[in-house]
């Protein structure tokens, strides 16, 4: 698919998005609420056939953001799904590992460092923090001492 075809394809999920931002020639950000992220990620993987790169978690003041970065290699496009988790008390989002084995580690890592609960993750155990790291301390959250 070329750029125009890709944009047309992405418009198929417009109803699930809050907004679309294009920062440069080949960087697109799709903003959505956490509930819709699962369907959008599935669409990007299976319909658009983009490649999953990695996910980033950010502690913004009023919400948590999970960014899923995908690469559409044919035209060197990076499509990032920015999912907003509004519930700060019990942040949770549907895991995408069941249909994307590549996401297993990064979801475990985000669980370790940010305390996000990934529902239906097949193996949500500690990955990168030490065995004796205290529970409930999430180093990537704001306010946690560096």
């Amino acid at each position, binding site marked *: 698919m070329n750029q125009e075809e890709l944009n047309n394809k992405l418009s198929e999920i417009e109803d699930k998005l809050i907004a679309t931002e294009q920062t440069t020639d080949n960087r697109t950000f799709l903003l959505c609420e956490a509930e819709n992220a699962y369907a959008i990620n599935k669409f990007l993987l299976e319909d658009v056939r983009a490649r999953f790169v990695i996910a980033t978690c950010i502690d913004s003041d009023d919400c948590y953001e999970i960014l899923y970065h995908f690469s559409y290699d044919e035209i060197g496009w990076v499509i990032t799904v920015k999912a907003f988790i509004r519930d700060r008390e019990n942040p949770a989002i549907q895991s995408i590992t069941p249909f994307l084995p590549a996401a297993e580690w990064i979801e475990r890592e985000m669980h370790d460092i940010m305390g996000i609960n990934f529902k239906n993750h097949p193996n949500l155990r500690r990955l990168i*923090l*030490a*065995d*004796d*790291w205290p529970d409930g301390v999430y*180093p990537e959250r704001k306010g*946690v*001492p560096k």
Partner: protein
Amino acid sequence: MSWKIWSLKKSPWVFHVNVGACNNCDIEIVNLLTPKFDVERFGIKLVGSPRHADALLVTGVGTRQAVPRLKEVYRQTPKPCAVFLIGACPCGTGIFHGGYHVEGPVDKIIREEDPNAIIAYVPGCPPKPEAIISGVVKALSAL
């Protein structure tokens, strides 16, 4: 000088421990075996178990997960043994200073286990193989 120290100086067998390194120093250590530096001509040999070692080559900052392992390896190494801290990371945590998962510097960790440990420092990021050889030989001749 006891015969144990003498044999350590003559032909030190070293065990390499990585406690959270970026691998640069680890690769420079393995480089010591290759034809350009050929450290075996000094009798220095890399062994596969701390139980056979006279000296430890430690790289890395000392992450929280790796610290118990390091102490265990030190306990298993027959004494007397020398500990060489290779690189800026074990000498003083290097650029990772203040990280939440960093428990180093490594000399503090070793001294918790054994206050009389023999520790030598080879700083650099990474130290060149010539520097590592020079550091090891210098430290051994000072023993």
